């Protein structure tokens, strides 16, 4: 169980720079997600850590030892692919045994290990089946078992759940988390699904166009995004642009306060407010004044337990509010309302 460090990784494919000086430290034993849209470089980074791709610059270290030049077969990583990549001509048992066999572990010892991981993934009794006789979820688990049986230093997963349907996915997410905790492997998980990243990870690294935009715990990243991209990629956000004036942000007639430190007087500033942090003209929050902002209600989307409200501000930009349906006392469509939220929920973001 070792940590992984990548330092200043650069990767070019011809004229395109896919990774632009990426550095990150992945703590031993922790589950880190690499989250980003397609083209962000997250899969490339994973494959560089695995050793399938050689970076143009930068280093990869496992437990402090530089492995950048090491070939894949030497790195002792466990990898789970999006397509599972099970060996179609081998049984489940032989699939799992493959890695052990490569390391000289054979016979009874190997069989015991295989049984151990089959139990771990709840697939006892499936060991003689062929991959084509398994369902998607079962193949997933075999791929996982195969990757961890050799007790690798790092477990790498390349969007392994994206081929599963929603229900199965959620089930597998739980399984995955359990198995990771039980085995204690340092795990790096690539996904484009932000909900998945938030659910599974100890840490999340958001990538955008070849750079790590923010790296931290799910709560950190969600509650305190640092850039517009991070704010909008992870969950929804309402963005406001105003001017700093005497310790507050001025937008039209409104003066909005924040708990973040403001830049110099007169500079333009952007901030984000999460839709669930807003409400309609709430009374004072204890001793603290709330931010207020006027808008017109355009539409209500009712979803049973919750409702989403779409509004337009004075300049016409869309705002979103997200509330639980507790008292159902809503304004009517077309009405002018005043939104309010706590200054602590005013998050300054950079572009």
């Amino acid at each position, binding site marked *: 169980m070792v940590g992984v460090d990548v330092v200043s990784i650069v990767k070019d494919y011809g004229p395109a720079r896919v990774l632009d000086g990426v550095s990150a430290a992945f703590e031993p034993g922790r589950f880190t997600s690499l989250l980003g849209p397609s083209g962000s470089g997250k899969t490339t980074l994973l494959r560089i850590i695995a050793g399938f791709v050689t970076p143009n610059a930068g280093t990869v270290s496992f437990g402090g030892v530089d492995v950048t030049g090491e070939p894949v077969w030497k790195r002792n990583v466990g*990898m789970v692919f999006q397509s599972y990549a*099970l060996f*179609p001509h081998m049984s489940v048992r032989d699939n799992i045994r493959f*890695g052990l066999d490569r390391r000289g572990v054979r016979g009874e010892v190997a069989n015991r290990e295989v049984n151990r991981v089959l139990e771990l993934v709840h697939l006892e009794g499936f060991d003689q089946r062929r991959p084509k006789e398994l369902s998607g979820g079962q193949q997933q688990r075999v791929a996982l078992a195969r990757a961890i049986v050799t007790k690798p230093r790092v477990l790498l997963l390349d969007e392994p759940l994206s081929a599963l349907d929603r229900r199965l996915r959620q089930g597998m997410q739980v399984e995955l988390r359990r198995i990771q905790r039980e085995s204690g492997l340092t795990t790096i998980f690539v996904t484009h699904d932000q909900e998945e990243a938030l659910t599974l990870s100890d840490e999340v690294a958001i990538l955008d166009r070849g750079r790590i935009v923010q790296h931290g715990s799910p709560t950190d990243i969600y509650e305190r995004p640092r850039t517009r991209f991070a704010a909008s990629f992870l969950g929804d956000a309402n963005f406001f642009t105003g001017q700093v004036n005497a310790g507050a942000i001025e937008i039209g007639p409104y003066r909005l306060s924040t708990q973040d430190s403001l830049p110099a007087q007169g500079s333009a500033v952007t901030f984000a407010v999460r839709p669930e942090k807003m409400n309609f003209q709430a009374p004072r929050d204890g001793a603290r004044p709330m931010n207020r902002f006027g808008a017109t209600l355009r539409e209500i989307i009712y979803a049973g337990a919750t409702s989403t409200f779409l509004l337009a501000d004075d300049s016409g930009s869309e705002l979103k509010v997200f509330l639980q349906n507790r008292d159902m006392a809503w304004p009517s469509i077309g009405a002018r309302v005043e939104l309010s939220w706590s200054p602590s929920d005013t998050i300054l973001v950079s572009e």
Partner: protein
Amino acid sequence: MATRIAPSLPARLSSRRAWTTAGLLIPAYGWLTLAVFLPLGAMLFFSFLKAAPFGDRPLVFTFDQYLAFFRRPYLFDVAWRSIELGLWTTGLCALIGLPAALALARATRGRARQVLFLLIILPFWTNGLVRIFSWTIVLREGGVLDQALHLVLPSAPGLSLLYSYPAIVIGLVHAYLPYMILTCYLSVAAIEDSVVEAARSLGARTPAIFWKIILPLSLPGLVSGAILIFVPVIGSFMEPRILGGRIGVTMGTVIEDQFTQAFNWPLGAALSFIMLAVVLLIFGLTSRILPGRVASF
């Protein structure tokens, strides 16, 4: 207890479907009947005659022709030599074809791959006889090979590969190699990159990847290529005749002689069916030995 899940089709619709199916199948089966089964049937009939049924001779039926191997014991030698030829040719085609298919599938892309494909199937575009005769020009004394050798080693003795067993094998391998390359290519191309990567991530180096992953997954291609090659080769007669000189005696040439020289169609037909039986026997045996591996995964 089984329950009917789908409602049965109305009678009119299902008979219409039957007609449609028949209509689609009839051309294929009709062609098969006309071009394959009828001539084979005629040959089978001939094989039980004493002499070719032309002229006003009465038809005499006999099993004699099928005892050909016992009447003519030298045929055992010839038959074995034909099978040997089949094995050599198939083996060499596999040895050359699989690496070629691997290179084609995994090491080339786009334009380069298309060009290579074209070059590989080029032999199919040339006339078989022309191909074989051009080998005589290359292999004979004073031919291209001989001259090339003397360019490099002027004092070397004359090199003539023509009229020898290797010459026959060369001609056959040249003619049938594309089959093996194409069937192996289909199998190899179906191997997902991620499967190979997974093997690497589990600690396999290139030799292990070849023996444990690529070769087993190429087996269907190798087997179908082997069938496509072995069967025609053991009956081949053009290459043995033209390239083999006095060495070139195979079941194919013996059968051809019966039809063109000896005018003994019954014997030729009987020998052909004996060969067919041997081939079916070989299929039957090998399909037992390679059941799970050859079956689709």
